[in-house]
């Protein structure tokens, strides 16, 4: 029996499109096009589907080709699934770097939301964010930044900062010029040392103390 290149299956989770293992990618795309051709305004339109790619790893070009086809026929791809694990469309970055295993390791990537502030923070201004905070500018004395993750200031840090505000002791604070009025990481608190900083520095918790080091070779500090 000739095996279908693609099959539509309905289940409790909704509609899933499966493609056969043997078929070449071009065949798969053509088959999808044919099945959905003229189907606009018909049964499938507006439906959100899961595309199961089997054991394939889709390249970015293949993913965007797939999007195109579905868009033209009014279908919405809810997620692209492979037997390597369920992936959502927003994880397209994931499929790009899938082969480089080092980037799958959560030690090396941080997918927590990160707020990027693109101006100086003035005295009296407070920023609180559930995630990491990066400031492209100065943080003036009298201002306060509170983050559950890390805080990085690409400028002079002279205000008060609290990283790891929900208790994460791995959080850190870095700045091109680290001279905070007060620096807190998780439950630890300290103030800037007397000397003016000469180069970028990073503050982390080490053995129950906040330790400030030069920020050269920052990757190794994690």
């Amino acid at each position: 029996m000739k095996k279908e290149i693609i099959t539509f299956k309905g289940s409790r989770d909704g509609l899933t499109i499966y493609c056969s293992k043997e078929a070449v990618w071009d065949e798969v795309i053509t088959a999808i096009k044919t099945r959905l051709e003229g189907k606009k305004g018909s049964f499938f339109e507006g439906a959100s589907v899961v595309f199961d790619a089997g054991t394939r790893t889709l390249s970015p070009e293949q993913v965007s080709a797939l999007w195109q086809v579905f868009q033209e026929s009014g279908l919405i791809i809810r997620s692209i699934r492979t037997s390597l694990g369920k992936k959502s469309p927003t994880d397209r970055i994931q499929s790009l770097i899938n082969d480089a295993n080092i980037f799958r390791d959560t030690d090396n990537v941080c997918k927590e939301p990160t707020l990027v502030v693109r101006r100086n923070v003035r005295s009296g201004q407070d920023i609180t964010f559930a995630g990491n905070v990066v400031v492209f500018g100065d943080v003036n004395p009298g201002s306060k930044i509170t983050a559950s993750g890390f805080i990085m200031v690409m400028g002079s840090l002279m205000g008060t900062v609290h990283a790891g505000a929900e208790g994460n002791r791995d959080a850190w604070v870095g700045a091109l010029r680290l001279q905070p009025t007060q620096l807190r990481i998780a439950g630890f608190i300290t103030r800037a040392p007397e000397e003016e900083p000469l180069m970028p520095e990073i503050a982390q918790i080490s053995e129950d103390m906040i330790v400030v080091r030069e920020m050269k070779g920052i990757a190794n500090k994690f």
Partner: protein
Amino acid sequence: MGEVIVITSGKGGVGKTTTTANIGTALASMGKRVVLVDTDIGLRNLDVVMGLENRIVYDLVDAANGQCRLRQALIKDKRFDHLALLPAAQTKDKTAVTVEQMKKLCDQLKEDFDYVIIDCPAGIEQGFKNAIAGAEKAVVVTTPEVAAVRDADRIIGLLEAAELRNPKLVINRIRPHMVKKGDMMDINDMIDILAIELLGVVPEDEIIVVSTNKGEPAVLDMTSRAGQAYRNIAKRITGEEVPLINLEVEDGIFSRMKKLLGFKS
């Protein structure tokens, strides 16, 4: 249609009232029609510094509440015909006028004067909000002190939040020999933190003490260095380019400042 400029600082005692009186008088001496508005209700000082305290009949609160016509509350200056003062009330406080009333007053004054200069009280509460209500431009005054710069930074943040963008900076009461010795904040450090354009630098001058007590603004005294600085600031407000006066400091700071203001050093 005139320009409405608010002179503010956050910190008290840095020289807002002195700056208002002197810039206003200097502009009037250049032939401009100027009105000075004192919004420090309850703690009025601008009338004393201008030497007009004996001539107050009606004040800002009266005019705002309609108890008199705006014209009746304006006091003509002793020396210049086209310079006027709208004094604050001494017996009320800053809740006596609303933001809407201030806006309306400034709109009326704009029509009859080239410059409406508003002397803002210290602080960030109702007095400040009233003062900036009708303003289009802002001048932030500070002294070279850490506490004053901290407050100025706060004020600039509040001005930006109120859509009064690009305030200009006046650094007041600077002592060049102390800056040289490193005992006083460097002008460049202040500009780094505050990150706004410099309008002028006024040196510490004993003549200011005498002039505010006598009610004769220092710009009228040709021997006063602060007066000279204020005259230059007034010229810059009208768009003229004026080099910074040499305050007997090493060239380094001033050629850098000149560059900041766009002059060739």
